């Protein structure tokens, strides 16, 4: 543990913008919700009406979890129900970035030769991330109390969100020990996060399997029901899980060599069969592509299954059927497809950022020093970032439509196809950033986050229409229609072309 303090200072120096930015921004949103709900629903009766509709909307329950009361605090806590996933994601990425990514780059070796204990990097990354979550906890609690909400509920809300961050930070610290590659460590942790979310979703929507949400740490956070039941038990479970994961991670740290994972590397073929840039791109993208397609298949199955059980419920319950009709026949499915679209955009951006990864590690230099031209190299990766999300959306939509019931298939596939041009706009924006501002290419994630905020929170935060219009997903209709499809595809084409031209005229910086 020696040297942990120094390493914490190093992390704080490197993340001095990013860390406070996300912690403060995310933490301010619940209070923002509270103040805009006050404006939208001035009386208790308005609030109760909104709560009644929300409680029985499967789409809302799927995304945000169950709602049990109609006080302002409860509604805010419920509407922020997707936050644990976001906070968990950022936390695990932060921990892996400061452990395995550093180790893979060989920087841990440099630091490890100084007076630094074996567990120092592990401890420093965890302590910093937990610290950021404590800041988040403090801000949420104080701002919610500032909005005139009860102290107990506010503290529990902040605590539950901070603990979801801590759980996934600890999970990231464990997966970082498993593999020698940061990419694999991230993938494992994100899959676990996704499974936790889907378990919670299925358990909350389908009351027949409600125990499922008690298997998921995301479910625990929501079962606190801050401002309502104020149940502390789920938080104790989360605390135990954090402790368990930290112990597991630190045992793993002391059992392995620096630079290695627990999953040992096996010898591979002595000769290669990769024949060109596209073959190489396939090798580099295939693992991620397979993972995303499997993930979309799972999401499609869950969403479709939930949709069909809602249909069964509605058949027995005329009140619910009436509400569903009012929300628009298959609003649940269309809403879920919109979520799939955003997730596919995250994949598109990730795949396009591979361009920058390859350049920054010096691999591009090796390829471009051969007779392969810049355009050919760029295209080999862009193909995967355009067609990969398309394949994932197709598989997700297909399985969702089939499990929802055959008559839904065409609607669902149409809705999925309608998302594609919006996904491509974000992919193409990434290509443009890579071409014109390679060092800032990862700002594309900011665009994904902005689209996400606009889709999930735009209406509640009362953003102006022109702000909502900035997101390509705002322009996607409920089904496939020609105008948005063609317009968005054209915008994507323009962005990608501009990026390509900029790339062809710039220097390839040294690694």
């Amino acid at each position: 543990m020696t040297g942990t303090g120094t390493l914490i200072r190093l992390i704080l120096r490197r993340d001095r913008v990013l860390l406070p930015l996300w912690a403060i921004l995310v933490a301010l949103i619940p209070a923002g919700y509270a103040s805009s709900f006050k404006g939208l629903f001035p009386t208790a009766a308005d609030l109760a009406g909104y709560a009644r509709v929300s409680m029985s909307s499967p789409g809302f329950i799927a995304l945000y979890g169950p709602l049990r009361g109609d006080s302002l605090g409860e509604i805010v806590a419920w509407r922020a129900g997707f936050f644990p996933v976001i906070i968990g994601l950022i936390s695990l990425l932060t921990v892996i970035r400061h452990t395995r990514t550093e180790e893979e780059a060989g920087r841990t070796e440099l630091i490890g030769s100084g007076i630094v204990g074996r567990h120092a990097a592990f401890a420093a990354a965890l302590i910093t991330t937990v610290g950021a979550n404590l800041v988040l906890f403090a801000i949420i609690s104080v701002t919610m109390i500032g909005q005139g909400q009860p102290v107990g509920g506010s503290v529990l809300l902040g605590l539950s969100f901070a603990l979801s961050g801590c759980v996934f930070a600890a999970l990231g610290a464990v997966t970082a020990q498993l593999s020698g590659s940061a990419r694999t460590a991230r993938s494992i942790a994100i899959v676990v996060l996704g499974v936790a979310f889907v378990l919670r979703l299925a358990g909350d929507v389908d009351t027949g399997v409600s125990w499922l949400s008690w298997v998921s740490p995301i479910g625990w956070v929501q079962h606190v029901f801050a401002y309502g039941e104020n149940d502390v038990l789920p938080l104790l479970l989360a605390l135990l899980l954090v402790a368990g994961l930290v112990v597991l991670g630190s045992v793993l740290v002391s059992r392995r060599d620096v630079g290695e994972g627990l999953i040992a590397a096996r010898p591979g073929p002595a000769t290669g069969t990769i024949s060109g840039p596209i073959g190489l791109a396939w090798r580099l993208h295939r693992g991620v592509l397979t993972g995303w397609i499997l993930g979309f298949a799972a999401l499609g199955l869950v969403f479709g299954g939930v949709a069909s059980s809602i249909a069964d419920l509605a058949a027995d319950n005329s009140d619910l059927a009436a509400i569903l009709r009012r929300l628009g026949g298959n609003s649940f499915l269309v809403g879920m497809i919109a979520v799939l679209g955003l997730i596919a955009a995250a994949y598109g951006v990730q795949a396009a950022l591979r361009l920058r990864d390859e350049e920054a590690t010096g691999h591009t230099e090796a390829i471009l020093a051969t007779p392969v031209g810049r355009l050919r190299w760029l295209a080999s990766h862009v193909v995967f970032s355009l067609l990969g999300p398309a394949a994932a959306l197709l598989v997700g939509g297909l399985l969702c439509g089939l499990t929802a019931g055959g008559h839904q298939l065409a609607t669902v596939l149409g809705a999925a196809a309608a998302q594609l041009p919006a996904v491509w706009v974000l992919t193409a924006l990434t290509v443009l950033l890579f071409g014109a501002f390679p060092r800032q290419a990862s700002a594309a994630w900011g665009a994904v986050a902005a689209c996400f905020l606009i889709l999930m929170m735009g209406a509640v935060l009362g953003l102006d229409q022109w702000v909502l219009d900035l997101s390509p997903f705002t322009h996607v209709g409920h089904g496939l229609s020609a105008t948005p499809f063609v317009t968005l595809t054209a915008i994507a084409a323009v962005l990608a072309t501009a990026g390509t031209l900029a790339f062809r005229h710039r220097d390839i910086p040294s690694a």
Partner: protein
Amino acid sequence: MTEAIGVTGLVKSFGRTQVLNGLDLHVEAGEVHGFLGPNGAGKSTTIRILLGLMRRSGGDVRLLGGDPWSDATALHRRLAYVPGDVTLWPTLTGGEVIDLLGQLRGGLNRRRRDELLDRFDLDPRKKARTYSKGNRQKVALVAALASDAELLILDEPTSGLDPLMEEVFRQVVLEEHRRGGRTVLLSSHILTEVEALCHRLTIIREGRTVETGTLASLRHLTRTTIDAELVGAVNGLGTLPGVHDLRVDDHHVTFDVDTETLEPALRKLIDAGVRSLTSKPPTLEELFLRQYAR
């Protein structure tokens, strides 16, 4: 003889900082040319411009008779490059990377590839992630040397190799050169390597060429160390321009002397009567230290 690389007055600036300020580099076809300079002198930037990875801000650059920026793809069919800091795709094996780079260059000599793997003692079945720096360097070297490229651009190719492997590298480059008359541009810090391999060399400093020529002609530019036992006393040696660090201890003198002052200095010694004399030619290290520190 035709020119493989012709760089005249090359300028490269990044924003307001100028990295290359009128650099000259001329490499004849078929020669092994040393490219030397202290860290940050602009060696790698020059090489990146030659490879069309960076665009020049000014000056004239010809590579194998073409323009390295606009004819990049066509020119790259005829060259192979080994970067100073080789990074490989972590999930590919060494063998896969060698074959990939070979394929991209239009095929490689399989027998030669296996022979080189053997001589460099490299296991091609290992994942690149597990290779040490030296082994990564070997992967790039085998890929480049097993190709039939007429020009090899090597940027500090032996950094990270052990002395045994450095020796293998030297032998292979000499054989290659004897066999096919390939042109080699070798950027290096290892002076014995440069001395053993290069016909001519170019020394750069702060983005400018400071010396270029054969090793012998460069030696000519510098000083010889003289150590002599004399019969009588020597007069006027200290006043000769070009005599440095003169130490007289009774009948024993030592000094450094510029090449053009060698003859008058020796005359003075002979006038005093010489009992014994040793002269030491400048080492490449001294040549360097003088050029680098100027």
